[in-house]
C-alpha cells in the first residue's frame, strides 16, 4: 500500500525529493499518532518494571544499596518457600482443571443443535463476566465457617462440616476451585471457537474409516486445536500465576500464610508491612515463569503471522 500511496502523488509532482518528503511526513505523522502509546508504555510499564529491580536491591528504609541482600533473606525464610510451592501448585493445578473442564464443556455445547448453543454459551460464561472480587465474595459466603450453604447440603447426606477456608488443605482446594470456576468459561469459549473451525469433512472421513468417538477426539480434534489449546493455556498460566483478587478476598493468605501466592504475599510485605524493597523482590519472582510463557506465546504468534 505504501508504494501505491506514494506513487499517486509522484505522478503528479514528478520528483524524487517530493516523494522523499512525503514519506518522511507520513512516518512523522505515524510516530506522533503512536506517541501517547509509547509514552504510556515507557513511563507506566517499562520504567516501573526496571525500577522494581532497583527497588529490590535496597534496604527496608530505602537508604542503602544491599545488592542481593533481600533475596538472601527471602531464601532463608520458610514462608517464602511455602509461597513458591503454593504459587506453582495453585497456577498449574488451576490451569489444568480449567483446560479440562473448558474442553469438555465446549464439546457438550458443540454437540447440541446450534439453535440452543447461544443460550448455553451465554449462561456458562457468566462467571467470567462478574468482577472476580465480587464473585469471590459469594464463594466466601458459601464457604462461611458457621453458615456454609455447602455444609448444609453435606449435612443432609450425613457428612461432617468441611472447614473450607480454615484448614491448609481445604483452603488450598478452595482457592483453586474458585479460580477454576472463574477461568473455565474462558477456556470453553476459546475451545468452542476452535471446534467450530475444524472442518466437518474430517469427522465424516474419520467415521467412514470407523473411528470411535475417542479416536475422533484424539486424532482429529486435538491436532486441529493444538495451537489454540497451547496459547489459551499459556495466557491463563500468566494470569493465574499473577493472580491476586481470589486469594486476597477468600483467605488473605491464611491459615498461617499457607495459601499466599506471590502477588498477595508481595502486597502483605510491601504495602501492608511497609517493606517496599522486600515486596518488590517477592513480586520479581513471578518474572521467570511469565517470561517463559510469554516467549512461547510470542513465538506462536509471530509464526502464525508469517504463515499469513
Amino acid at each position, binding site marked *: 500500500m505504501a508504494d501505491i500511496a506514494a506513487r499517486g502523488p509522484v505522478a503528479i509532482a514528478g520528483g524524487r525529493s517530493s516523494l522523499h518528503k512525503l514519506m518522511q511526513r507520513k512516518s512523522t505523522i505515524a510516530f506522533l499518532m503512536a506517541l501517547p502509546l509509547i509514552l504510556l508504555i515507557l513511563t507506566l510499564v517499562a520504567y516501573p518494571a526496571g525500577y522494581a529491580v532497583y527497588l529490590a536491591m535496597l534496604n527496608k528504609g530505602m537508604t542503602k544499596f544491599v545488592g542481593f541482600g533481600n533475596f538472601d533473606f527471602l531464601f532463608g525464610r520458610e514462608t517464602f518457600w511455602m509461597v513458591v510451592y503454593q504459587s506453582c501448585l495453585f497456577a498449574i493445578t488451576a490451569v489444568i482443571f480449567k483446560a479440562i473442564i473448558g474442553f469438555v*464443556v465446549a464439546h*457438550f455445547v458443540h454437540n447440541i443443535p446450534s439453535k440452543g448453543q447461544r443460550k448455553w454459551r451465554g449462561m456458562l460464561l457468566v462467571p467470567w463476566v462478574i468482577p472476580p472480587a*465480587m464473585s469471590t465474595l459469594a464463594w466466601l459466603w458459601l464457604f462461611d465457617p458457621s453458615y456454609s450453604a455447602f455444609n448444609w447440603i453435606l449435612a443432609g447426606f450425613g457428612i461432617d462440616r468441611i472447614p473450607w477456608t480454615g484448614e491448609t488443605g481445604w483452603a488450598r482446594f478452595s482457592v483453586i476451585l474458585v479460580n477454576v470456576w472463574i477461568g473455565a468459561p474462558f477456556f470453553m469459549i476459546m475451545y468452542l471457537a476452535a471446534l467450530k473451525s475444524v472442518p466437518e469433512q474430517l469427522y465424516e472421513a474419520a467415521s467412514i474409516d470407523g473411528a470411535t468417538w475417542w479416536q475422533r477426539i484424539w486424532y482429529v480434534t486435538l491436532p486441529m486445536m493444538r495451537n489454540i489449546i497451547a496459547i489459551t493455556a499459556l495466557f491463563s498460566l500468566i494470569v493465574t500465576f499473577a493472580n491476586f483478587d481470589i486469594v486476597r478476598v477468600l483467605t488473605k493468605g491464611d491459615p498461617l500464610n499457607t495459601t499466599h501466592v506471590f502477588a498477595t504475599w508481595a502486597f502483605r510485605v510491601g504495602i501492608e508491612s511497609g517493606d517496599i524493597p522486600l515486596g518488590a523482590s517477592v513480586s520479581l519472582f513471578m518474572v521467570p515463569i511469565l517470561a517463559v510463557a510469554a516467549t512461547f506465546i510470542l513465538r506462536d504468534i509471530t509464526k502464525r503471522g508469517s504463515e499469513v
Partner: protein
Amino acid sequence: MANATIASPTATTISGRRYGSVSRDRRWALRWSYFFLVLFAIFFLTPPVYMFITSLKTSAEISAESNPWWVYSPTLANYIELLTQNTYLTFFRNSAIVAVLTVIITMAISVIAAFALARMKFWGSATLATGVFLTYLVPETLLFIPLFKMFAWFNETFDIQLMNHWWTLIILYPTLTVPFCTWIMIGYFASIPKELDEAALIDGATWIQTLTKIFIPVALPGIIAATIFCFTVAWAQFLYPLAFTTSTTELVLPVGIVTTLIKGDVFNWGQIMTGALLGAAPPLIIYAFLMDYYIAGLTAGATKG
C-alpha cells in the same frame, strides 16, 4: 434452556426416520450433552444465584438454622438500605466515572496508535507492535509496588499528592487496557482490505480522514469489543484501588464492598451480597445485550495476530 430441551426431541425423531442407527447414537450423545450441560450450568451459576438468594434475606433469617437455599420471607430491605446510603452510592459513582473515563482515554490512545502501527509503518513500528503485546502480558501485580513508590516520589518532588484519590486510578488503569485494546485494534485494522484506504488516499483524503471516515466505521465491531473489554477491566480492577486508595470517599466498588461492608468480625452478609450483586450488574447487563461483541473481543485477543 426449556426451549432447547423441548425442541431437541422433535429434531431427533425427524432425523431418526432418515438415518436409522447412527441417529440413535446421536440421540444418546445429545441426551448426555444436555445432562452434563445442566450439571455444569448448576456449578457455574450457583454463586450468583446464591448471592441473589442471600440479598433477599433479613439478618435474622440469614443466621437462622433454616434452609439457606430458600427465602422464607423475602425483603428488599438490603437493596433499599444500600441505595439510600451515601457511601455505597459514592463507590458506585467513583466506579462509573473511573470506568467511563478509562474507556474514553484508552480508546483515544489505542485506536489512533493501532492505525499508525497497522497502516502507516514507521521506523521501529514492528518492534513497537510486539512491545505492545509484551506489555499486555505484564501483570499489574508486578507493577503496583514500583508504581506505589513512584507516586510517593512524585509527591515529594512536585508536591502533588497522587495517592488516595479516585482519579489516580484513571492514570493507572490505561496500563492494563491500552496494550490489549491496541493489540486487537491492530488485528482488526490489518484485516481491512488495502484497496479501501488506497481509494481514499487517491481521492485525496488525509490520513486522519482515512481513519475517521473509513477505518473506524469499518472496524466498528472491533471497537465495540475493545470498549466492552476496557470497561469490564476498569470496573473489576481490585489491586490498584486497594493499594492506592484508602478513604471511604475515594474507593471504587470492589474495594469499597470488601473493606467497608466487612467490619471486623461482623459480617452483614445480606448487605455484602446485595452490594456485590449490584456491583456486578453493569458488566452483566452490558454482557447480556452485547454478548456477541464480548465473545469476539475474548477470542480476538489470542487468535488475531
